[in-house]
Every structure is written in C-alpha cells, then in structure tokens.
C-alpha cells in the first residue's frame, strides 16, 4: 500500500517524466464520498429552492449529482475503472434506499393509522349490532386464532411425517415426486387454495357450505409445504453419527427417529412451524371464500360463517358503515393487530432458534 492516501496533485505523483504511463495512480481522499455527497445535497437544495421542487425530486437530484460528481472526480484522478466502480456503488446504495422507502412507509402508515382504535374496546367487543362508532374485533381475533390453530393441528403432523419420510426413508421415484410437488405446492396462489376448500366442502357437505373448518383446510394446503420444507432441512442436518450410534445399540428405527433425530432437530422444527403460522395467519383471500364473514362471535368452526381478522379488515374497508371513518379506523387497527401478531411470531421463531439451536460446527 505505497500509494498516497493524502489528496495528491496529479502532477507530482502520477505524471511521470517523458509522458510514459505510470503504474501508480492517485486515489481520492478518504473524505471524498461524504464531501461529494454534502456538496451534491447543497447544490440540489439550491436548485430545488430555485425551481420549487418537493422532497422526492430533491433526494433524486442529490443521488444523481452525487453519482456524477464522484465518478467524474474519480475518473480525473483515479482512472476509468475506479470511476465506474464508484458510480456503481452509488447506484447500489441508492437502489437500496429507494426500495426501503415504500417499506418504511407501509410500516409507518399502519402504525399511525392503526393506533386510533388500538384500545381495550377493540379487543373485547364484537361487531354484533354495532352501527357507526364503537365495536371491536374480538370475534375476528377469536376466528383467526381458531382457523390458524386448526390449520396448524392438521399441517404439522402431515408435514412433519412427510419430512421424516423424505429424510429417513425416501430414496426412490416416489420421494423425488413428493419433493418436486411440495416445491410446486409452495407456489399455489392462496385464492386457489380457498376455491379448493370451497369446492371440497361443496361436494361433501352440499353446495354453499362455508365455515371455519373449511378455512382451516384451505390454510393447511398453504401451510403443509412450508412445514415440510423447513422440517426437511432441519432433519437433514442432524448428524448421521447420532443415528448410527443409536442403531449400534440395537434401537429400532422408529425409536431412533422419535427419540434421537426429532429431539435433536426440535428447535429448528419449531422455528419453521412458527414461521409457517406467521405466513398463513394473515391470509385473506382463502378465508374470504371458505370461511365467510359475520359480525357476531362464532366459536364453532364446524357450523356457520366465522369472522377472521384479515377478512374483517377487508370488509371494514370494502363496505364501510355510514359515517365512513369508524369503519376505516377499525380496518387499520385490525391490520395493525395482524402485523403485530406476525412480528411477534417471527420474533418467537427467531428466539427459539437462537436459544435452543445446537452450536454450529464451524
């Protein structure tokens, strides 16, 4: 690293005598990026003031001026390759900031609009007989818990057993087919899962059968492949030494799987299951079709329509009451509640894997 780090004047260190090309070129000073950024921001602010721009064009202008400025300066001192590199760094960073904007905006909007009705009444009252102000989402929260709970009860045994089959038994064509179709199944649109549950219940229990259990079936169609995928990954990383040690002690295979393999992988599997619940708990489309909606509390998943948080939020937005604001407030608060549930589930999953995961080998 013999190149100068202090700002070089091109004539003294770069330009060799007799005009021959030097192997050493100058570098920009360390403060170059921040300096150019500051200069770009000041310049953009001036232009924005002159032309009466808003905030968004100002930020855009700053980014463009920065990219042009830094790469131009770098081209002069450091040469073309470094200049392209610096320009690309600017592009990558601004792309990241650009993408962050809507995502931050989503979170901020949901929190600021959802807090209006984030009160005790919202969590203890249903919408039975409520017109206009007041009311709550107790019935919808219970419905979400019931449908997601039932879906989990159905998906985890099936998904886990399939993962065990794939890792411990499957080697032939059947295993390959299952792996492939599980992957394909992860891509089923949620509304198609809802239509499937609707069609299934229409055929078995007569047309128009819409209840919480149908919604749970639709959700488990979406959930099973996620559970299979994550459990399979976790079972695969259980060391073979453990299995072989157990076999050597004369343990039957089923006992090896249940007593040795599963306990070793249990942390990872619980993380996967929690994330799977987080994925389906906010689903709207399948529940809209298979579970329906109601204003009253219905805790029986096997008869009658059932409200769920996501569908509740949708209908409060889509068919609001006469003063429109209380309905929209409820829609946003339901959305906020849903987002909090998803975040908490994600945090739980993260902490399970942090607390219980065996130490990584390397």
């Amino acid at each position, binding site marked *: 690293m013999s190149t100068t780090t202090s700002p070089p004047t091109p004539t003294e260190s770069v330009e060799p005598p007799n005009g021959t090309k030097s192997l050493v070129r100058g570098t920009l000073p360390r403060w170059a990026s921040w300096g150019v950024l500051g200069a770009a921001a000041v310049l953009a602010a001036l232009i924005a003031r002159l032309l009466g721009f808003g905030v968004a064009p100002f930020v855009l202008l700053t980014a463009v001026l920065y990219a042009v400025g830094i790469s131009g300066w770098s081209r002069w001192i450091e040469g073309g390759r470094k200049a392209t590199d610096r320009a690309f760094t600017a592009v990558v960073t601004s792309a990241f900031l650009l993408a962050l904007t809507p995502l931050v905006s989503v979170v901020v909007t949901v929190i600021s609009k959802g807090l209006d009705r984030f009160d005790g009444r919202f969590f203890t009252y249903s919408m039975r007989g409520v017109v206009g102000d007041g009311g709550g989402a107790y019935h919808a929260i219970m419905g979400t818990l019931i449908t997601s709970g039932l879906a989990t009860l159905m998906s985890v045994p099936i998904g886990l*057993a*399939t993962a065990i089959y794939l890792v411990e038994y499957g080697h032939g064509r*059947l295993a390959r087919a299952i792996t492939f*179709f599980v992957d394909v199944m992860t891509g089923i649109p949620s509304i198609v899962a809802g*239509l499937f549950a609707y069609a299934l219940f229409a055929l078995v229990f007569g047309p128009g059968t819409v209840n919480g259990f149908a919604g749970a079936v639709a959700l488990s169609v979406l959930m099973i492949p996620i559970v299979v995928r994550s459990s399979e990954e976790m079972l695969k990383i259980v060391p073979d030494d453990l299995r072989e040690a157990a076999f050597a002690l004369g343990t*039957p295979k089923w006992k090896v799987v249940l007593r040795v393999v599963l306990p070793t992988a249990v942390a990872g599997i619980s993380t996967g299951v929690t994330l799977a619940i987080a994925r389906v708990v906010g689903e709207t489309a399948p529940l809209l079709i298979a579970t329906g909606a109601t204003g009253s509390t219905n805790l029986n998943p096997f008869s009658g329509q059932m409200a769920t948080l996501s569908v509740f939020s949708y209908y409060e937005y889509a068919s609001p009451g006469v003063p429109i604001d209380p309905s929209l407030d409820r829609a946003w608060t339901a959305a906020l509640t849903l987002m909090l549930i998803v975040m908490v589930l*994600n945090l739980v999953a993260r902490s399970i894997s942090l607390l219980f995961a065996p130490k990584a080998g390397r």
Partner: protein
Amino acid sequence: MSNTGQGAATARRVRKRPADQAFRGITTGAGVLILVVLAGVAAFLLIEAWPSFVAPAEEIPGEGGLVLYIWPLVFGTLLASVLALVIAAPLAVLIALFITHYAPRKLAQFLGYVVDLLAAVPSIIYGLWGFTVLAPATRGPAEWLHEYLGFIPLFAGPPSTTGRTMLTTALVLAVMILPIVTAVIREAFLQTPKLHEEASLALGATRLEMIRMAVLPFGSSSIISGSMLGLGRALGETMAVAIVLSASGGVTFNLISSGNPATIAANIALEFPESSGVAIDTLIASGLVLFAITLVVNMIARAVINRRTDFSGAS
C-alpha cells in the same frame, strides 16, 4: 444421506419389527397424502368448474362465453405481474448486492432479518397502504407521464383521478414481491465461493469487476429462479390487487387511465361473495386457469433451481 439408507437396510435384515413397518407406513402415507391433495386441488376445481364449460354462452357473466370472460382476466393478470417483476427484479439484485457486498457486516445481518420480516407482512396491509398512500401519490407523476410521454401507448391516458390504476397496482405488487426475490438472490450471493472473490480482488479487480466476474456468474440462475418465484407470487396475489385496482374489464395496455383489466385472483375475491350458480362455476374455472399458469411458472423456477444444485454440487 446414504448412511441412513445403509442403516435402514441393516435394521431390516436383522428383524422386521411391526412398529417399524407401521412407522414407515405412516410417514409414507403422509407423503402420498400430499400428492393426493395436490391432485385433489386440480380434480375438485375441475369438477366444480365443469358446469361452466358446458353452459351456453348466454349464462356466463357478460354473456360472451367462457373464453371471452376469462381472456381479459388472464391478460390483466399477466400484465400486472410482468410489470411488477420488471420493476422489482433489477432492484432486488441491487439490494441483494448491497446487503451481501456493500453494507457493513453487522448491518447486513440486521437487514437480512428485516427483509425476511417484510416478506411475511400480510398482503391486505400492502393493499390498504397502496389504496391510501401510494394511489394518491401516483396522480402527479401519472399526469406528468401523460403530458410528456403520452405518445407511448402505455401512457395514453387520460390519467385516472383516483390513482387506482394498473401502474399503481404493479408498483404495489413490486413492493410486495421485492422481499422474497431479494431473499432468494441474497441467499445465492452469500454462497459465492470466498476464494473466487478474493482471487479476483487480489488480481487487482475493483469491487464492481469482482462482482461481475465472480458473484454474478455464480448467482445468475438464482436471479432467474428468484424472479420466477416472485412472478408466481404476483400472479396469485389477491387482496392487494382487489383493493388497489379499480377494474372495469377490457384489454388495454394503457397503464394510467381509469379503465383497467382486472386480474383473475382479484376478480374472484370481488365477485365470489355475491355470486351464485353458473357465475360461481365460472369463477372457479378462472381459478383453474390461474392454478395452471402458476404451476407452469413454478415448475420452470424449480427446474432452474435444481439444475443449479446439480451444477454447484459437481464443482
């Protein structure tokens, strides 16, 4: 996993335990059940949609027959999703690069976590946000596009006054699929062999040249597969589109006017609760078409991913 196989073989040769047989049967049964469910999805949809195939054209909503009903929906679905992907895919590559190769390590880990979290935000929230925040915000730019680029059919206008246009829908979809596409690509970029990266840096490459020579060739197939997964998500996205897009049917490439083609999924969600009889069968038939489209897209994505696993395993 070959060791497990040998273990199983030895165990069977010694003695066939009934419990072992039963356990194997149960797990195999669960696997087969998944195949049955997937076949069931197709079969039940087909059975329930059948009446709309044989019904006379006048009974289908719109009175033009099944093909005429579904075709504009397919068009709208493809237009919105492809547009979303065109916006999201390049951004996703750049974000993945930022997280893996530009951000400080501590920050990168945190950002990776945030991206995973955002992938789990329910779609209805994106829908409400698109309707409340994004749609009004696109009005000004849409008018600008119409004024200066109106000669391009995409921006022929006249600009919608609500902002609930195809352009807004595509933007919302792009925001929604960005986290999942980024997650897939980031995963692949992280696995770029460190030695390749260090070798190219040691030969004097700048960071951009290192990325072009070592990271992108390694991650190129993951960019394709991640995009296909994102496309699959966008195709099946229901609630966000149902809330944001103000659809009026018809086939048009005009992105900023108030007359937009609907998408299959959003159309089902909007029409289903109020439909009965043949109308429901028709909606289920359109769902079947959506199922087929996403199936093809996902199969292509998986084929690309599997080829990559073979490739990286061999090298």
